């Protein structure tokens, strides 16, 4: 629906381009495209003079567009590589400005009767690809693991697929449910279930602590651990600009980092930035 609305808005925008000023083009991460569109919609409602175009395509696409100048802002759900930063510097003649705009993190749930309390991302990959089929492999009961996943249009699905499954396919046995609440409900009722979803939601299920690899410790998915980046299934969602944003773009960035923009972040289902860094935190390189 949102994409349809965005498409209609996009068409409407084309008509107004002639009168309005130069539009701000935002391109990148598919995880962030809905967030970006909601920001744009809300911002344009309160700032009628500004036109913002938001498109997806993936973090890499957005960064490529930033390098060759076809986007003003690149949305990325990963850190920009040094090589890419150098390319921006070479082509655009300005240093990359990195702006964390929101936090994203997912929790792993099991049934409260399940004795398991911790898991590594490698074990998660093996479980969700049905290489590990029984809880005994993790020291749990002798029962088959039942997988609960999100529908494939969800950003959480994409994130899990990218970061846990390393872009490989889920097992066909994954039951896909519409929404984190449905997954929590299913896992709460299924002693052998495992599922993933937003951190704030977990009630009636056990949330596992997760280790990024065998040597790193198991970390609880608290908001603090997500904010500090310790939790392995957490990340910042970034905006990248070539050089310090100016004019309309600067206003937009400040709005996104302010209360109104961060409220949209929660509404879309991500985590607002910790309060202290909500003042335009940026690193230049």
């Amino acid at each position, binding site marked *: 629906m949102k994409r*349809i609305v965005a498409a209609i808005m996009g068409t409407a925008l084309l008509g107004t381009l002639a009168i309005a000023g130069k539009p701000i083009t935002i391109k990148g991460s598919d995880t962030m495209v809905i967030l970006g569109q909601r920001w744009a919609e809300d911002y344009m409602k309160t700032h009628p003079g500004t036109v913002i175009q938001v498109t997806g395509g993936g973090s890499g696409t957005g960064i490529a567009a930033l390098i060759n100048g076809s986007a003003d802002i690149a949305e990325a759900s990963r850190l920009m590589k040094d090589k890419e930063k150098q390319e921006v510097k070479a082509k655009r003649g300005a240093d990359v400005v990195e702006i964390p705009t929101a936090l994203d993190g997912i929790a792993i749930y099991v049934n409260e009767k399940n004795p398991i309390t911790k898991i590594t991302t490698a074990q998660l990959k093996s479980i969700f690809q049905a290489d590990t089929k029984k809880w005994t492999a993790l020291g749990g009961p002798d029962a088959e693991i039942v997988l609960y996943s999100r529908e*494939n249009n969800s950003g959480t699905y994409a994130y899990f697929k990218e970061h846990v499954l390393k872009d*490989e396919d889920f097992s066909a046995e994954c*039951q*896909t449910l519409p929404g984190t609440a449905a997954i929590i409900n299913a896992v709460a009722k299924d002693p052998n279930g495992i599922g993933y979803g937003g951190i704030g939601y977990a009630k009636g299920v056990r949330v596992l602590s997760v280790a990024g690899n065998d040597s790193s410790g198991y970390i609880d998915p608290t908001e603090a651990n997500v904010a500090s980046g310790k939790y392995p299934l957490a990340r910042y969602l970034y905006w990248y600009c070539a050089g310090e944003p100016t004019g309309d773009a600067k206003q937009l960035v400040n709005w996104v980092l302010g209360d109104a923009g961060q409220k949209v972040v929660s509404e879309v289902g991500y985590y607002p930035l910790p309060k202290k860094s909500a003042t335009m935190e940026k690193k230049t390189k």
Partner: protein
Amino acid sequence: MTETVRHRDQTNAAAPSRLQWERYAVRRGDRWRDIWMGRLITTIAVSTIAAIILIFLFIGREAAPVLTSAEVHQEVTVAKMVVPLASRAGRPNEFIWQPVSDTPKYSLPPLLLGTLKATLIAILFATPFAVGAAIYSSEFAPPRIRELIKPVIEMLAGIPSVVMGFFALMVLASVLKDTFGWRFRLNATNAGIALGVAIIPVIYTVAEGALRAVPRHLREAAQALGATPWATARRVILPAAAPGIFAGVTLGLGRAVGETMIVLLASGNAAIWSMSLTDSIRTMSATIAAELAEVVIGSAHYHVLFFIGALLFLITFLVNSLGELYIGRLRRRLTGVAG
């Protein structure tokens, strides 16, 4: 118009009183009202047909690129939708539905099989209940109880399917899992039973109508020969009404194939290629409902979803036509017998 005139002639022949004459007389205003109402109703009927044709054309147009567009064929072809695909190194090829992937995979067989399994269970569950209730209420129930049963069963049709699905998701699934200890809590049987409850009224209404339409003289003849009520029902009424009952089952089938909300909630939505009735399933309708809202318009994924929609339309259309055909045949046969 002609109907009214003919009536008057007949009444005339029977030498009516003056009062009856006035009752049947056509006033001038009536004639115009007749003509305009006739036209209005024709227009409404024609627009309904037009709407169906337009919907079909729309679905067809959006589904066609799956067959014709070279751009879509880079990602998926009909051939790729029906053969097992390579998913991971070291694993045998399998049917897999994973449209969001580095190499998107759109296997239709698990979706077709899932739809088939849910429908089959729904029919197996609903038919005995619906037909049994229909036999009871048409043959055995005292009139007062029949007046109660009929609206109550038909009220089942008024339960929103999302409520039925939610009930299956929260309550029925737990009961089934606790009773039988199946691996998947949400599975084909769970969804099929909920679907079955939803289609009981469809089958019941048609079956009851068919049983009641069996001419009275057949029933009376059987009873005159000394048949018990049960023997009458089983050996005379049931065979006479069989095509009508079959038509009811077919209509229920059509409804079950297309039903979306119940399976979306209660089936687990895992596109597993398996014959087990206790594995999770993903039906065609639920796939469209779950994925169409956020799909990129014009993408291969979008067209594939419409392709599934066209298939679904075709299946329900065929099944329903079959049902209607049988109802028509039954009606002709029974009126023939009665005449």
